[in-house]
């Protein structure tokens, strides 16, 4: 278990030792973390002493009281920021006014622990900071490899992962409390919702793997001459169960001997995403037409549906991460909001183009144009 170093800066010895005692037995785990975090606390009674200790051994986290005898917490925070020291700072304030919070946030504080606090409150603040620290590390290691994923992406991601957990927890509690009585049949509907959220989370994680993989993997080694029609037929057979369920007819027109130079898996991802969208955002009894043909130097993949379509505004944000078109027509359709941003990224990697035409209630057509191989 990795130990995160915490420096507790407070002029009251009781608070310092209390914090150290609470955190010495506390651990944090997070779904993406390889191992749990534990904590190692050291203590300083003034800002000056804290900065001296920081200079000799940089802590990961600083719990900083704002009211200190010499320099105050905000000043310590400013020194840390000016010296660009990589410490996550949480301010301990006796009254958490928005003004101090705003000032401290500008100066780089990550969290606030209002005083007096309970052990549970302290732990939950520490959990939050440890999580931020972990996310910062991932972001940094990706940056170092030249694969920058924005912090904002991770915060949206964590929101997207938390929503299904909150829903599941809410339902589990209803079941635990026997809110709907003793008959299991009465829980069928909420159990169905639970399974749906679990499935949504699974899809999100799978898309997330694709999303990360296409940015990180060494593609050169896996590029080969891919038979596009063959990949299209495979994708069709994957989507068929869903299309039968929704009574949607899918047709494929593919020229033989049409090739692109690509990692086969990337081509699969493009087909799978476009086809599943064409089926999902469709209507009962709708149609999907897929075509693959060579046009000059290019291979053109077309996926057309006569489903619910989109307006201009919706098209304009379509390829952004975590965008899901929300309107009365898309109610009840689930997805990660990553699919088309993945397709877009893959198209970009192979120097291709993606074109969309769509009209509400008439349907959409996606065209992927890739250099022929």
């Amino acid at each position: 278990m990795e130990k995160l170093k915490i420096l507790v800066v407070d002029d009251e010895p009781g608070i310092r030792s209390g914090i150290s005692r609470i955190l010495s037995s506390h651990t944090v785990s997070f779904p993406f973390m390889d191992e749990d975090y534990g904590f190692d606390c050291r203590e300083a009674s003034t800002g000056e002493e804290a900065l001296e200790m920081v200079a000799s051994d940089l802590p990961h986290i600083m719990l900083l009281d704002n009211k200190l005898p010499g320099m105050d917490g905000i000043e310590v925070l400013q020194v840390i920021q000016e010296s660009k020291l990589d410490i996550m700072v949480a301010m301990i304030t006796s009254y958490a006014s928005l003004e101090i919070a705003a000032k401290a946030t500008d100066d780089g504080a990550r969290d606030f622990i209002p005083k007096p606090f309970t052990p549970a409150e302290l732990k939950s603040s520490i959990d939050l900071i440890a999580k931020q620290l972990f996310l910062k590390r991932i972001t940094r290691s990706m940056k170092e490899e030249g694969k920058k994923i924005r912090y904002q992406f991770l915060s949206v991601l964590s929101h997207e992962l938390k929503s299904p957990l909150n829903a599941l927890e809410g339902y589990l509690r209803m079941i635990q409390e026997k809110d709907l009585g003793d008959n299991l049949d009465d829980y069928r509907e909420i159990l169905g919702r639970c399974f749906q959220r679990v499935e949504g989370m699974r899809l999100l994680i799978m898309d997330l793997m694709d999303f990360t993989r296409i940015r990180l993997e060494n593609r050169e080694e896996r590029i080969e001459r891919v038979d596009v029609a063959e990949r299209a037929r495979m994708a069709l057979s994957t989507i068929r169960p869903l299309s039968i369920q929704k009574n949607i007819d899918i047709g494929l027109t593919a020229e033989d001997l049409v090739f692109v130079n690509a990692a086969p898996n990337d081509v699969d991802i493009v087909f799978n995403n476009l086809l599943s969208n064409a089926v999902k955002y469709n209507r009962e009894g709708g149609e999907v037409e897929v075509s693959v043909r060579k046009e000059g130097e290019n291979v053109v993949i077309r996926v057309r549906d006569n489903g619910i379509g989109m307006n201009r505004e919706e098209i304009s944000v379509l390829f952004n991460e975590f965008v899901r078109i929300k309107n009365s027509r898309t109610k009840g359709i689930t997805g990660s909001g990553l699919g088309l941003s993945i397709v877009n990224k893959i198209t970009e990697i192979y120097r291709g183009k993606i074109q969309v035409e769509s009209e509400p209630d008439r349907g959409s057509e996606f065209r992927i144009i890739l250099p022929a191989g």
Partner: protein
Amino acid sequence: MGQNHQKTILVADDDPDVLIILRHHLEKWGYEAITVDSRREAEKYLEVYSPHLAILDLMMEEDDSGFILSYRIKKKDPEIPVIISTAVSGERGIRFNLDDETGRKWIKADHYLEKGYRMEELKNVIQKLIG
């Protein structure tokens, strides 16, 4: 509690499961729950009716739908208590504080709940606000 004395609570959230779970609990506690899944739907309801309390998700169509909605509710009737619930603050590392004047000036809501809150917590807040 008799039908006629039931207090109405407007719940706006774009997560269908939040609506199902909240409706269940609110009804269990004797309130009438009106659930809508967008700011637009909430505004339609508010054109005609006044709830006794509103529970609003912060992020719906826009990132700040809850604030906009809360502002509209307070403009219509400042006496209607508003609870804003969201999952965003955790990631941003910022907590909203409604205990002082500055906080209240910025955030037009009576209470702020971080998603993942327990139902008992919500119940206490509602009881404190409207009994």
